[in-house]
């Protein structure tokens, strides 16, 4: 339960147009950095996987 709450605070599992930054809510640069870091890791994993299996997902 606690894990789920943390997940909801940090992440969205949905592509729905919800949880956008609210009007007047300042841009949270730390949050953008966290997401960008996670994207960097995912993209590095993708590049590594491509080296292992260049014609698709391993």
């Amino acid at each position, binding site marked *: 339960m606690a894990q789920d709450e943390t997940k909801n605070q940090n992440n969205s599992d949905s592509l729905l147009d919800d949880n956008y930054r609210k009007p007047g809510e300042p*841009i949270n640069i730390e949050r953008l950095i966290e997401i*960008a870091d996670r*994207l960097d890791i*995912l993209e590095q994993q993708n590049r590594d996987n491509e080296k292992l299996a260049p014609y698709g997902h391993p």
Partner: protein
Amino acid sequence: MVIHESLKGALKLKAVLLDTCVLGTIRNNIKNPDVQDFLKLLDELKCTLTINDLIKAEFFRDANSHTELLERNNFIKALCQQFSLPFDQSIYRSAMILSYIYVRHKHKGVELIDLMTSALLEKYANNQRLILVTTNHKDYPLTVHDRIGAVVLDLGKDLSTLGFYTINTNKWAEEASELRDSEEWQPPARSNIPEPPKLFG
């Protein structure tokens, strides 16, 4: 990062449409002080940061997994505010007319997504409340756009020049009028060949 006072004034309380290239610049350089200062400035000016559905699709396009897609979406949601800019038939029509205007001016290679974005700017051009920011300046020629200012971001290895664009409705109307009256765009004499759909309503 240096920003002219007149551009600050023009941006205050406006909706700022982020082009995909700008989204990418922010995402790839979010730890850069100039990028952070730029975002803080937009906050101070109470700008509403937004994208449209095509720009969102372009930002999602190269995702390699569902997790990556969700993270890209999280990035957009953390950066932008929900601000509906729906595409309707009038925007498709304006985008096509703009493409013919560009052909007359020999502006080649402007992608459909950029034509649609310009048409969107034209639709919401009232009081210049919607302003596009992009690094792809050639995609928004001054034939129908006004560049209201520029900001240079020092990204370390590279410099990125952000241009801020609105539609000049007078130029747009003039260009559309010249196109409509041009010899090339007169409907052909009646024949047995079915006529194409009317472009100018």
